[in-house]
């Protein structure tokens, strides 16, 4: 409940405050967002599986974001930044899909 409210408040703040993304963070923000989404869907699935743990959620959220950003940073340093961020997005996308499929089975029994 409280995290859901936090999500809504964050969306509203982002929409109304018009923040500018610092230039150094611009390549990493989209990847970090995807990684965080992956963590959120995984958390919802864990809730439905009955194995949710607050601490695990927080740690996985932060580590997902940091690792995704780090991979992209490393790719940029190696000159394969765009390919690597594509790869990260593909992997995270697959994980999000499988988590959503699991959630769907819980909710709709199908």
């Amino acid at each position, binding site marked *: 409940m409280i995290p*859901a409210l936090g999500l809504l408040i964050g969306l509203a703040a982002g929409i109304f405050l018009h923040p500018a993304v610092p230039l150094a963070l611009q390549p990493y923000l989209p990847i970090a*967002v995807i990684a965080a989404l992956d*963590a959120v869907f995984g958390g919802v699935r864990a809730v439905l599986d009955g194995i949710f743990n607050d*601490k695990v959620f*927080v740690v996985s959220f932060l580590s997902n974001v940091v690792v995704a950003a780090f991979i992209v940073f490393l790719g940029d340093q190696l000159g394969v930044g*765009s390919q690597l961020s594509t790869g990260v997005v593909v992997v995270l996308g697959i994980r999000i899909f499988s988590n959503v499929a699991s959630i769907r089975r819980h909710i709709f029994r199908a």
Partner: protein
Amino acid sequence: MSSPAGPDESAVPEPTPSTWRRLMLMMRPRATKANLLSAALALLLGFAVATQVRQNSSLGLESLRQSDLVNILDDATLQSARLDQNARELQATRDQLVSGSTSGAAALKAAQERLDALAILAGTARAHGPGLRMTITDPGGKVTAPVLLDAIQELRDAGAEAIQVNNVRIVAGSHFSQGPDGIEIDGRSVPQPYTIAAIGDPATMSSAMEIPGGLSENVRQLGATIKIVQEKELTVGALHAQSAPRYARPVPQSAPAAP
């Protein structure tokens, strides 16, 4: 938590009736430290999503990578070359059309001038300009067709370009004859007094009429009176009915001139 995706991809979990209850339980606000931390992370996520979406929609070129920029530059260069080519072609077409229309307009103007000259000559168009108006009153009926024809001839010598007698237009094919009740021109009876309107140089025509032994003297000797008025603006309004030639046919211009 972001639990591994692999194991239960195939295994459908038991549809437990407690799913919704578990969700409800989770939704209940609990002021634990971890829950608050989750809320803070969710807030951060929402903020980042909204920011990124905004950033992306107002995105300029500055956030793109070098290879993307090179691609865009290539595309732009190619497109510019193509558009340049297009513009050159269109320019050439436009030049052609412009020159075509101006030469067409010049040809049309020349044709119109030719048509005007021929129409005045053939008597199918009204003409106006400076000229001479002569009135011959002949109580004795002594002025005959040859006298009138002489008058027309003299006017032509003096440069008359359009002539009408009463309301009959005089053209190249006009013929004068003596009918039962007076002079006839082109078969139409011309009653007295004879009013001749001629467009041309008024002074030249006037002096041609007045010279000794000329028209005026002849007419006066016949007992008629003649009045000559020079006009600055005169209208020859009578028209000659055009009829297609029955026998004469134009020789094609490319054909050699017949002997």
